[in-house]
């Protein structure tokens, strides 16, 4: 009795191993993201965006069945990402790589995807030079410069010509400061002071007090989304900075939709610049949000992560349709260049030269709407390219 059962089990395992080979007409997509640790939300948002698109397309990409292979990096982990990418390419024989929430992870896999000619779509990593690190990388998210620069221009247009900057002391903070300062001073504005705060900074009172004593007209700040913006805003409110006549501006990370409920009223009236708002008033976004809430409930709000994941799938789908199902690296990259899509965030395009995204950047104001804190779009700058690449 024992032997046949054992044999049956063996043959089952054999069949399971053979199954991927049988489904060789499927498009295999390797997704490298964070599913554990403090940034596990990123992976959940990605998954939701991917699932939403695949639901709409009937599980197909370019007419072929899509198969998503998810891998966890547990946060910024370039070494792990590289090993995972290698595994996905060599063992799982993926035709696309995607995900990539952290810039170091995206940089780490660039040499691999170049060598293996695997088209790679970045869903979040926002360091400017990622797309220049491999001809097989395209991006559907944003760059920090791309959203910081329009804020500076908007402030100047609205008569604010002096500003103090506060950024977190890491690569993206430097990017934000650089892009803001460049656009602001080029337009005739003056930076009256700037400060960099350490990444692990529990108490912002000293920095805010410093700003209060410097009495600038306006402050522009950039912090990664998460714990830092609410902590800063709490102190800002406590010190009565608005009453002291100091206006506050930031990039959209400060009022990330995923954290808006947590941030709450301290963000009231905060002006930010970003490419996606949950509140974006378009039919496409209304449907996206409704589908999202139907599928995943209202506890998690779709953020720019979910939108970028959705768009990455759309871009793969469109590119494969253009190539007639040919998933070869060069063919797909050619199809991706200049690709235009209607995203929940508005119209987007993959730049034909840089493979980076071109999109509308919105100026938004945090407001309470139907019992929810949202970013209401009040102005926009269309077709914004990555300023860091434009200046080269």
């Amino acid at each position, binding site marked *: 009795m024992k032997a046949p059962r054992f044999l049956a089990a063996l043959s089952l395992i054999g069949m399971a191993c053979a199954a991927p080979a049988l489904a060789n007409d499927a498009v295999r997509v390797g997704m490298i993201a964070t599913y*554990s*640790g*403090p*940034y*596990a*939300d990123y992976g959940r948002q990605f998954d939701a965006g991917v699932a939403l698109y695949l639901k709409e397309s009937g599980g197909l990409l370019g007419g072929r069945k899509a198969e998503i292979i998810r891998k966890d990096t547990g946060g910024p982990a370039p070494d792990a990402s590289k090993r995972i990418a290698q595994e996905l390419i060599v063992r799982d024989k993926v035709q696309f790589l995607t995900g990539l929430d952290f810039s170091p992870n995206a940089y780490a896999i660039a040499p691999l995807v170049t060598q293996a000619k695997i088209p790679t779509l970045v869903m979040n990593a926002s360091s400017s030079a990622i797309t220049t690190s491999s001809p097989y990388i395209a991006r559907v998210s944003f760059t920090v410069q791309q959203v910081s620069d329009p804020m500076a221009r908007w402030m100047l247009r609205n008569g604010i010509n002096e500003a103090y900057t506060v950024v977190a002391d890491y690569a993206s903070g430097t990017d934000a400061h650089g892009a803001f300062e460049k656009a602001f001073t080029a337009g005739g504005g003056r930076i009256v002071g700037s*400060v*960099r*705060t*350490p990444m*692990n*900074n*529990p*108490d912002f*009172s*000293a*920095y805010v*007090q*410093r700003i209060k004593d410097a009495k600038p007209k306006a402050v522009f700040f950039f912090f990664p989304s*998460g*714990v830092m913006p*609410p*902590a800063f805003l*709490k102190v800002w*409110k*406590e*010190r*009565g900075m608005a009453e002291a006549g100091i206006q506050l501006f930031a990039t959209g990370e400060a009022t990330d939709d*995923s*954290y808006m*409920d*947590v941030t*709450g*009223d301290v963000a009231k009236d905060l002006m930010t610049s970003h490419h996606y708002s949950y509140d974006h008033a378009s039919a496409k976004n209304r449907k996206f949000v409704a589908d999202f809430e139907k599928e995943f409930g209202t506890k998690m709000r779709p953020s720019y992560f979910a939108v970028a994941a959705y768009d990455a799938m759309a871009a793969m789908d469109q590119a494969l349709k253009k190539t007639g199902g040919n998933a070869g690296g060069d063919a797909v990259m050619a199809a991706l260049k200049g690709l235009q899509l209607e995203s929940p965030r508005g119209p987007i395009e993959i730049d034909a030269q840089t493979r980076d995204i071109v999109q509308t950047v919105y100026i938004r104001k945090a407001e309470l709407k139907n019992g929810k804190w949202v970013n209401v779009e009040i102005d926009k700058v269309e077709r914004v390219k990555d300023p860091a690449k434009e200046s080269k």
Partner: protein
Amino acid sequence: MGIVLFDGVAYGMLLFLIAVGLSITLGLMNFVNLAHGAFAMAGGYAAAVAMNRYGWSFFPALALSFVVAALVGGLLELLLYRRLYRSHPLDQVLLSIGLVFVSIASFTYFFGPSMQPFTLPPLLTGQVALAGMEVGRYRLFLVVCGVVVLGGLLLLLNKTRFGAMVRAAVDNQRVARGTGIPVQRLFFATFVLGCGLAGLGGALSLGMLGLEPTFPLKYLVLFLIVVCVGGAGTVVGPFVAALVVGVVDVAGKYYLPEAGAFLIYVFMVVTLLLRPHGLIPRKGL
């Protein structure tokens, strides 16, 4: 100048409130308890959940945070800590850092990886005029809490029978046991008290630090600095150390923002070089 000093003191009080429990477990009981932040987190979550899900107001939630952290501490003392009182410090380090990771994973599982929402009650928001300065009400509340806790602990340890027994048991367990002091039960009570204070500190920190599952690792260094610089095993030591660390940190960030965040480490190194056993070692209690 004044406001910077006040902010520093308030921040120091918060550090003191979270770290004082560690001074009790680490210093009095000689147990290297790196999981201290996990008890603070347990208290913080208890308060946040009671407020967000069950609509409690802030002050009852504070009491709850103490109770919950103390209960969790008591349970873990019975199950785990008790076995390791007399083992090598390395075993204690390994157990407690293991507990930190277990707590991070379980809080992520039950509450998700993101922050807990929290709003201060209206009574504690905004500023109030004090000695010619506009000081934050919440910060003032932290200062009051710190002084109350300090006073309470000093009375408890120096003026009560319980305190006398704890001091005796810590100085010489064998003799204490010989004179009929129930050392085991005493340590249990002390540990529970330390954890409860951690929980209270965690809940009080809600208005300043964000509460998420990585809390115990993120702020571990700060708790350890306060206890090391202050001198483990006393209550006054960590109090003084927390105040000095808070003021150095805030003043450093205000006057020298380029070097600001680094100054507390310089301060720690210099203090420990000059006074290797801390500012106020145990004899000074």
